[in-house]
């Protein structure tokens, strides 16, 4: 059957763009989440929007589930496809269809790499603001599916704040256009509903995004603190003072030491309990005034040493350590579980203490590098997946970390999505009625629940809602 299907799909996309043999599918059996893997039934790599639509229609007629995948950099197992599903790989749809500087808009296909769009907009003094750490590899289609964030989302917002219009192929192969070039909806905000739906409402084929002006002045400060707690208090102090920096990123000592021992060394002080990167941007005058205020607040909250990077090269060096921190942690152990959760900023010190205690309880090395301004934690657990007992401890620690975040009114994910990884925590985050509503909404877009099956909503935990009229 798979061979028949492969042949049918090959007629649409060409033989070389269908992968059916197990050895060819190894590449697609995992994304950036190291704890989960599964091989799809086969993978198809369409080369145009028309081919995607044809593939989706074909799968609809055959009743076959599918999973859309971009670059496979997701960290929640959202792009994993089980043995009954076809993986639709969108990396060949990589055309930037339009950059319109006067309207500050760009139109792209889903396989365009995030950083490429910013490169294309730069000659016009513009950039695409959401900047996930994987921005040199991750695709905008994946960003839309996951509602991706990034360090600079503190000031500029996450993906959903930057998407104006979408052309979407629904799981039954119908095309719909949501939103408008301005961003105002033609009807209810279906763009807002679609963004972050983790590939379960359809596939975005054409994405219209906002471009933002590149700030004329940028300063990046690096402050060393005796403890994560003191650094967290500084973060709250800056926000409470009415300053919204472009980014506020924190790394704990374990993370700093891993970075400084790696090829990404950025000159961070390895004796500090935590380092805080604060980036301020805007007009030169506003930046000058805000830097003064931020420095004063950092000192008031116990910063021992403050460095200010002015030139692009100095700034790039400070950011290099932060952006490459996940890679640097490869020095600690072969595998890294990059966790993602959010807490109210005021709870950061308490929860980080709790995360540290959880690490000790399970005998695990947990390094923290995170978006402190948003309260968006990334506790990273170093481990070796070949050690089953260790893997079990990683799962247990993850569960405890999620519980700690929920206990203070937080969320189980701030930017990585639920995917496969967080499915079990959804009933802790939402009641059965709300989960039921989510499932019912999913059925509006995908009555047969064939798009990215088994993700986000744990079906057993849902209260039953009636199916929408077909």
């Amino acid at each position: 059957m798979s061979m028949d299907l492969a042949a049918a799909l090959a007629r649409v996309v060409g033989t070389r763009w269908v992968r059916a043999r197990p050895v060819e599918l190894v590449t697609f059996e995992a994304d950036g989440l190291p704890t989960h893997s599964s091989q799809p039934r086969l993978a198809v790599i369409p080369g145009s929007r028309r081919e995607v639509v044809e593939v989706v229609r074909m799968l609809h007629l055959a009743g076959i589930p599918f999973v859309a995948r971009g670059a496979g950099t997701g960290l929640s197992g959202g792009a994993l496809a089980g043995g009954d599903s076809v993986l639709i790989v969108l990396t060949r749809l990589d055309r930037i269809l339009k950059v319109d500087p006067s309207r500050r808009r760009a139109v792209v296909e889903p396989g365009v790499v995030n950083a490429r769009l910013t490169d294309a907009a730069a000659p016009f003094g513009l950039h695409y603001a959401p900047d996930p750490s994987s921005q040199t590899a991750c695709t905008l289609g994946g960003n839309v599916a996951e509602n991706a964030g990034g360090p600079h989302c503190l000031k500029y917002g996450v993906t959903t704040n930057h998407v104006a219009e979408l052309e979407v192929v629904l799981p039954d192969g119908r095309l719909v256009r949501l939103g408008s070039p301005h961003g105002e909806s033609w009807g209810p905000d279906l763009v807002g509903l679609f963004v972050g739906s983790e590939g379960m409402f359809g596939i975005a084929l054409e994405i219209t995004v906002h471009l933002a002006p590149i700030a004329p002045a940028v300063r990046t400060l690096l402050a060393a603190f005796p403890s994560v707690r003191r650094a967290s208090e500084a973060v709250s102090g800056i926000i409470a003072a009415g300053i919204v920096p472009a980014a506020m990123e924190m790394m704990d000592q374990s993370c700093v030491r891993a970075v400084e021992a790696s090829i990404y060394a950025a000159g961070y002080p390895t004796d500090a309990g935590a380092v805080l990167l604060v980036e301020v941007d805007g007009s030169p005058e506003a930046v000058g005034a805000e830097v003064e205020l931020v420095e004063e607040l950092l000192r008031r909250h116990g910063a021992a040493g403050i460095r200010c990077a002015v030139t692009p090269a100095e700034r790039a060096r400070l950011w290099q350590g932060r952006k490459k921190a996940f890679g640097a942690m490869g020095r600690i152990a072969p595998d890294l579980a990059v966790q993602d959760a959010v807490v109210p900023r005021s709870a950061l010190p308490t929860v980080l203490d709790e995360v540290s205690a959880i690490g000790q309880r399970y005998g695990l090395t947990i390094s923290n590098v995170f978006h402190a301004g948003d309260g968006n934690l990334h506790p990273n657990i170093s481990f070796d997946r070949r050690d089953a007992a260790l893997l079990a401890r990683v799962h247990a620690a993850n569960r405890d970390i999620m519980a700690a975040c929920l206990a203070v009114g937080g969320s189980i994910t701030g930017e990585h999505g639920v995917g496969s990884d967080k499915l079990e925590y959804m009933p802790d985050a939402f009641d059965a009625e709300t989960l039921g509503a989510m499932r019912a909404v999913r059925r509006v877009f995908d009555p047969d629940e064939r798009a990215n099956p088994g993700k986000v909503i744990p079906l057993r935990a849902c209260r039953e809602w009636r199916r929408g009229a077909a």
Partner: protein
Amino acid sequence: MQPPVLERLRALLGPDAVTRDPAGLPRATPDSAEGVALTCRLAHDEGWRVRVEGHGSWVPGDAPADLVLCTRGLDRISSVSPADLVATVEAGVPMDALARRLAEDGMWLALDAPGRPERTVGSVVATATAGPLRAGFGPVRDHVLGCAVVTGDGRIVKPGGRVVKNVAGYDLTKLQVGGFGGFGILTEIHVRLRAVPRRDVTLVARGSRDALTLAGRDLLATGVTLAALELLSPTVAAEPDWVLAARALGTEAGVHADLDRIAAATGLGWATVPLERSHAFWDLIARAGAGATATVRLGVLQDGLDEALDLVTHELDEGLVWAGALHGGIRWAGSAEVSQFRALRRLAATREIPLTLERAPWALRQAVGHFGAYREGVGQLVGKLRETFDPAHRLVVALEGVE
């Protein structure tokens, strides 16, 4: 024979929570989400049509219904967290009451919705009506972190949360923002706050519409970031000419620099509105259309403002008009016939400009719809979503596309 609606509701919610509205309709004013849910469940089972009412200034009071569900009993500011810049408020809290409470802790909700200051938070969110501050702080959806909503059949759904970044589950909150109550009744809303800025300066310039629109384009090109840059018709501004009003927020040095840039980029004669009068100025701008019969908004980009303003003034009138001079968007308020709205919508659609009827008497709203005809395929999705959240269509809203 069943007792009438009024008695059934009183038995459910208590005698004090059920009165009659001026037209004689039973009006239930529950003081909890559970009370709203009980009311909706009963209405669903009994086949009663429900009209939702906040302060009564935005949603039409003449929609055909068997009962009025008033959200003004949901009037608690449940929590305010200055350290997290987040608040949880019930849907019936008036915007001005919320602003006063937040100001006590040096915070504000950067939303200057049109209409009367006592409009409820739920009304602003349900209609997604943002004012001039949308230029600097985004549309209503950017301020809402989560909510609780009661569906037409009495279920309580709680999407989103109280943290500023959250991708757990589908973003059902977005469906509620600007859903006009078609997907349920908002009972509680979690909002993102900001610290009150150190400096807050308002400038105004007067001139022809063309000159001021052009100035907006020039300012956009400079990349200057302003909290608001709103083009106001003479009637809105109560001036003989069109007025361009700019608002700069931030640090002393930053605001000063912005003001210098505004002057240099436009060559207009700007006058500063004294600080003690600036809040009153923006309040007047917000409430200028409060007495009008109907309000529409158009999602037009800045480079299409001129043409879209021509359309609006030609098809409707040049009375009460507000336009976002930086990032576009037009709001018009006044009185016009169904045929005029339809004509405007048709012409706007050919230019890729969506038009939303924000406020109107029921007859007009029913004839024109909040959104008019949907794009191909969208109407079916909206219809199914509506059936999901209000299976028996008990909530009286003009959500379905018409024309």
